[in-house]
Every structure is written in C-alpha cells, then in structure tokens.
C-alpha cells in the first residue's frame, strides 16, 4: 500500500491551557526570537460582568494554512508551503518587503528587527524533521498542545481532531488553517490584545 503523504497539524486543547506562557518563552528560547516580536504568544481576554466574569487564555501560533495567502503574495518565492504542510520562509530569499505581513489574516508574521526579514512560527521544522516535537509542545506543562501527522490515523492529533469538536480561527477566509483548537471562543478571537498586568 502506498504510504499517504504527511500533513502536520497542531491542536490546542484550550480546556487544558492554564495561561502560563511556557509555550511563548520556550519559543523565544528555541528560535532565538528577539524582544518585541513573537512567534507564539498567549492572548488573555476578559469577558462578562462581575461576579459572572470569565477569562480566556488563547495561545496563538502560525496556522500553517492549507491555502496560505502569504505564499501566494510573496514576490520572490521566499514563503513556501512544504508538502507536509509547514509554511516556511527561506531566509536567503526574503527581501523584507512585508507583503506577506499585510496579507496574513492572523498577524503572525513579523520583521526580525536584527535581520530585517520576515519570520514566523514554522512549527520548529528543524525539530520536526529530526523526529522531535516543536519546543512549545515539549514545554507545555499540561499537555494542552498536541502536534503530529493528521494523515496518520494512529497519531494523537488525528485521534483528538476526530474525537472532539475542533475549531479554527477565521474559517470564513478560506485559508484552511491547520492549527486547531478545542473550546475556542469567538469573543476571545475577536477581542483586542490586552497586556497582562
């Protein structure tokens, strides 16, 4: 039997997220992300009236979309979607024109203040290619982040996606994100990013 192609996916189980920022800090450390920009971060959103208040924790990374707009618009073919679904920026090709940043509906791209090229989360492909999990998955203290091959029915991520109701951010844009969430709240997605204090 022919082996199916690999399609990586990431799943955030928001029921398990405790808003501890371990993923964000692990990412900074793994990818040497400078201050002021983020590949992975946690958005904390407050909702409701006292005493029926609520707080949501929403960890965000690149969605590594099936139909990435950023790849379509890149004038120098620096943004590439690998066959396994990881959307990757070739640092040697990127000219830092910010077209992709303007095109990305999720605002996950940034210009590296030191290298002046576009960067974003690419699910730590250097780790994934070596058979390891991305740094944020490794760090997550409550195993709220699951990563794996969606095409492999035995993988944890495929099982979880089939078993639970999963959501993606802004499905209406038609980019088909491959970062899934369990228990995503639309209000948390739409809310403005507030700083934690």
């Amino acid at each position, binding site marked *: 039997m022919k082996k199916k192609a690999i399609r990586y996916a990431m799943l955030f189980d928001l029921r398990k997220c405790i808003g501890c920022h371990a993923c964000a800090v*692990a990412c900074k450390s793994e990818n040497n992300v400078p201050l002021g920009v983020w590949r992975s971060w946690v958005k904390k959103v407050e909702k409701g009236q*006292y005493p029926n208040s609520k707080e949501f924790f929403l960890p965000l990374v690149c969605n590594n979309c099936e139909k990435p707009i950023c790849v379509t618009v890149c004038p120098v073919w620096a943004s590439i979607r690998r066959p396994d679904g990881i959307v990757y920026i070739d640092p040697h090709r990127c000219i830092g024109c910010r077209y992709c940043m303007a095109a990305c509906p999720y605002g996950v791209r940034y210009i590296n203040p030191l290298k002046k090229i576009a960067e974003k989360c690419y699910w730590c492909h250097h780790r994934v290619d070596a058979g390891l999990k991305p740094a944020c998955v490794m*760090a997550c203290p409550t195993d709220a982040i699951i990563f794996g091959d969606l095409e492999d029915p035995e993988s944890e991520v495929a099982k979880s996606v089939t078993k639970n109701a999963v959501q993606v951010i802004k499905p209406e844009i038609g980019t088909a994100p491959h970062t899934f969430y369990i228990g995503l709240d639309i209000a948390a997605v739409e809310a403005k990013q507030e700083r934690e204090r």
Partner: protein
Amino acid sequence: MKTGITLVASAAAGMGATQIPDMKKNSSAVSRTSLKTLRAIPTSCEQCPAGCGLIAYLNGERLVQLLGNPSHPNNQGGICAKGIAGLNLVNDPERLLFPLKRIGPRGGGQWSKITWDEAYSILSRRIEQMMSKGNLNEFIIDKGREDPLLERFITALGTAPVLDRLSLKNLNRDTAFVSMIESPYLIEDVGKSRTILNFGANPYANHDYFIGFARRLVHSRVEKGARLITFDVRMSETAAKSDAWYPLKAGTDAIVALSMARVIVEKGLADQEFMKKNTNSPLPVLKDHLSQYTLQKAAMVSGLRAEDIERLAVEFATQKPSVALFGGGVTDHIHGSQNARCIALLNWLIGNLEQEGGLFFPRFIEKSQPRAPWQKSSGPKPDQIKATLDLQKLGNRIDTYFAYLSNPAYDDLDCRSTVKLLKNEKKVPFLVAMDTHLTETAFLADMVLPAATYLESWGLKSAPSLEGVPILNLRQPVVSLLSTAEVLRLPGFEVGKLIEPVFRPKGEAKEIGNLCLELARRIGDRVSKSLPFKDTQDYIAQEVLTFPALKSQGGLKILKREGMWFSPQKDSRHSAAKYSSRRKNKVKIYAEAWRQKGLSPWPEYHPLRKPEEETEDEFILTTFKSSLSSKGTSNSKWAREILHENRLWMNREIAKELGIQNGDKVQVSSSVGTLIIRVLTTSRIHPKSLAIAEGFGHNAIGKIAKAERFSSSDQDTRLLWWEKEGPGVNPNEIIERKTDSIGGGLGSKDTLVRVKKL
C-alpha cells in the same frame, strides 16, 4: 513551476524525511542551524520549591535550552515559563560575577573589585572575632534558599540567629497541620479527586509543587470530569479555569468552610466511622461547636449566597473522592493558622486521610538512619525571626549581617523601614550579601559576593512526591562547560577530568557550599570538623552513600545520568506500614495543646476586625504572584517582556463610582506608606478588595528589571521596548508588618488601604 520551487525549498529547509518520524516527548534536541544533536544533561530546577526535573541542552559549550525531564514522575516533561527563563538568569549580561567591596558611602553604588581570598579573610576574621568574644549571636544569617552545607555551617557555629525566608512562607499552614496531624503539610492527591474545593490557592500560576500539581489538576478536570470550585477574592488563573468561581470577602474563607462543615454534619453526610475512630472529636460535640456557624451568618459575612454554600457542601460530601485545598489567600492572614484549620476540618469530616483522591502524608526517601518524615524537619517555629526589622525589637545587637539569596530591602513587608535600618551603619555595622545580582540589599552592602545560580551548582533533595513514590532529585552544574584546553590548564589537573565534562560557574561566582567549606577551613577545628568535605561535589558523593538502596543501584553514576532516582518500592502509598500506623494517631480537631496555651482549641472563624469598625472607603489590599515572577526571573528579558508592569486591580463598578478609569493614576495609602500606581479596572475582583502583583518595581538588580534600554553583549537588551510603561511598583512598601500570633506567619493580605484619584 510551483512544485519545482517547493521541492528545492524542502531540501533547503533540511527536510528529506520520507518516513513518519516517531514523535514522543523525548529528551533530545537538535541545533536549529547546524541540525546537530545537542548534549542533554538532566538536572533539577530551583526557580521555585517544586523541584521539577529539567533537561539542559548544550550546543558545544553553550547552554541553549532548558526543558522538562519527561521521565521525572512529578512534572513528567512539563515545565513552566520560569523554568525555561532560567537561561536568562545564567546568561544575564548584568549578572554579578566578581566579589565587590564598597568604597564611598553606604548605598552610594561605588564598588571596587576584590579577590575571593580577601573576601574570605574579611569574613573569617569577623567570625573569629565574634567567636572569641562569645557573641556569635550578633552574626545574623538571612537565607532565601536552603543549602545543606550552609545548614551544617550554621549548626557548627552554634548560636547564630537565622532568618529562614523559605519556612516563613508556609509557617501558618505548617503550624495548623502540626496541631492536627503532626506533619507540617499533606499532599493533595488531586489527580484522582472528583470534587475539588480550592480556597485561595492558585496552583495554575504559583504553588509549592507547581507544574506537577497543575498537570494533575487539569488532567482530572478535563479527562475525568472532576469539578474544581475556587473561592478567591480575585479571579486567579486557577479561578478562570475552574468550573465555578465564588468571589468572597477577603479573609472570610474560614466561616464559609465552617458553615459547610455544619451542613455536612447536620445532614448526616460526615464519615462517622472516621470521625469516631480517627479523630478526637466525636460528631455530637463537634456539632455543638459548629452550631454557631449558620448558613445565613456565613452568607452575610462572606457575601456568598447561602444556597450556594449548602449545595457545594453537599456536593463535596457526596461526590467523593473530594478534597479541600487552600493556599496563600487563606493562610497569609493574621488568623491564618486558624483559617487553615477550618479548611482542613472539611477534609477530616469526609475521612480524607491516606485516601485515594484525598490527602496523603508526604513521602521521602529513607536514609540509612531511618527518620520519619514528620521528624525530618524540626517542625514549624512560630517564634522564629520574621523580618529584618524584628531583630531590633528582639534587642539583638548586629555585628555582621549575611544575606544569602535573600533581599530584605525589597521583600520584607514595610520594606522602606528595612532599608532605613540597613542604611544605618551604627545598627548594622557590616552587611554582606551573596547573590546572583546586585539586588536592593546588595546595593546597601559593604561586601557583595557573587553566588552561583542553581544551574551552576550541586544539590541533592528528596522532592515531595505527587505519586507517592519517593524521589531523590540531583542538581548538577550545566554551566559553563570547560573546553579541553581549559581543563588542561586547571590547577589540580587529573587525566580523569578529560573524560567527564567539567563545569565552572561563570566569572568568579561560587556556590554557597564552597564558601562555607572555605570559611570553615579558615576558622579552624571547631567548625571544620563538621564540614569534612573537599567541595560541594565531594559532599554530594558522600551524601549519596547514605541512601543504601541507591548505593546498590549505582550511586552517583545513575543519579548523574538520570537526574533523579526513585525508591525501588513500587507503591509506597499503601504498602508502607508506618503510614497506616500513623493513622492510629488521632486527628486532633480539638487541639488540647492550644487550649493549654490559652488559645481557642476548636477551628474557629475570627474576623479581621469587627463589622462596626469597617468604613465605606477602605479596601483590603491583597497581593498575588504571577506564573512568571520569582526571584530568579526578576531580571529575565523573556519573563519581563510578557509582564513588566503591575497595576492596581479594581472592580469596574467601584471604579465607576469613584470616577476612576482604566489606566488612571491613583494614590494608594496604608498606615505605613503611599504608592502611586495605575489602575486596571476589571470584573475579576471582589468590590472590597484591591490587588497588586508581587515582584515588580525594582530599583536595583538590573536594567531589565528597571525597564531601561541599554547596550550589552546581548543584542536583545537594545530592543527593550517597555521603557515607557516602566517597571511597576513594589507593594511591600505599603504592606503593614502583621503576623499571626499563633502560627507566626505573616499576615500580608490584611492591610487596609484608601485610594485617591490623582
């Protein structure tokens, strides 16, 4: 066209894997640029007392990543942001790396570098002088962290008074538990509970067993459908992820628990057999005592609804296994130890001792001379010194004040007064600070010594195990690896050193253990006899020999390879006879010892003050710790980037009444001082409470902690972007120094404040 590009790019991205890689959480890592496998060294974390297992990844000689140890039974591979940010602590360009001596006036910030030899002789001369005069009680040791060699050194000296910051934190809880079950604490088996009542604890952000505990709590909630109910004045991370949050008036947790206890007893839901056999208070007597705590009274005092309290009490007693846990919100009050007893009572009523999903005695690894865990520590000392300022009250004359990883000028309640005392050269003639950074206290010191971080030193600790299997954690240095050339140049070079990696703390930093050993050597016989070790590594090697089971399995070798070691007993939770025999000792709900001291022997509720004394415009100030704040992260760029400024949490409705808007500057004043701070209006706090996060508003330590941009060897420090927002404020400046008269712990969450809009 497109496929062609994709293929080229895939090769460029270093992917050529056709097979699906096996993706377990395992302990290996690759370099991001060279794709080489990194050297992995297991060790354990010391950012907080939880002692999680760590794996340190080294790229060549450089430490590049810290992640959880997947085979550690407590954290099981999980790690918190603080743990990862430990990297910032060792690599900090502003770290203190050389011994310094003050020139110019105290607190003037003028230093000159000295050698360690000079530092040793200054210290040993002072100690010898005190010894010869027989006034060693003027040598004050203020320790922010435990260290076995420092402990031995203090014991050998004899009379030196000690400020133990670590034990002070849980003093009220420890006193309460010792009065009931003779163990200073118990472990809540939340991973197997169905109903969890959480009174004022925040295990999702800050807890004694942080990651391991939060993991189990999340697991039982999400996978097993357990219910977690949180009572807290503030919506903590835990409250936000609970099934229900009940905001109550600050300091009233005890009366809620007591009225729940009353419901459980009156409805006949208590575990009658346990109460009869295992406690000293038969139900009818207890019922009499509890009769004063009616639902109506509890509802009136706490502001909760009577029907909610009743429903939760029934749920707690019927949906078993259940457990009631508590944290700083309950114990950090002037009646903290009584509060803790009231919550604990709920657990006894449903027979919650050595029960799955309930409470367990902590398990430790046995040494060759077996000592039971409750004898391990000498128990809580309610009369211990609580703050630097207390020394004055006790009439202690100070000759030399030695602060090790302790920062009283910042951490003490009412710290402005502490600074005043430490500045006074007559009252504190010689102040020595040993720390990783130039802290507020070190800034006032006469001599500053660079301390090695936990990633550069040796340690051996039996961590409180959450699974009941005792664990022994090894902490081994992972920074900085010496190159072969550097090893060859070492003074005491041996060929064996070329095979094993050799580490040296950065700069001239030293482990406290090595400092104690050298001082002991210089002071001479009396002290050096009890410290017969070459260095800290030698001490660990000898300490390992005292665990017979470990010795037979490979000793230090296996510890170094795995980073920790389990006891061979499989399930010590139920098999260990001593714990069942312990159960025969009755739980003292009625504390006879307390009655003899003239204290109330029953678990009771005491209000902070009488209701008629309360005024409309006063708030109760509470403090909290975020998941990113600890001493080790105060100058960490990654932690500070996420959280660099604290604000005054105020209920939105109240703010509207006072005409205060989000972000407005206000003046908060208590009886000891005032603070200027911006307001965060939120729906996540009780109207009568205000909250400020701890760990902000530093005026020393480093430029990152002070939110200042600067140039250094780390290019990130030039990118610091939160200069405008500032470093926040230190709430300790306005918190009154109150203590629980019974437990001895601090009542840091009882300060009344007024707010004025500026």
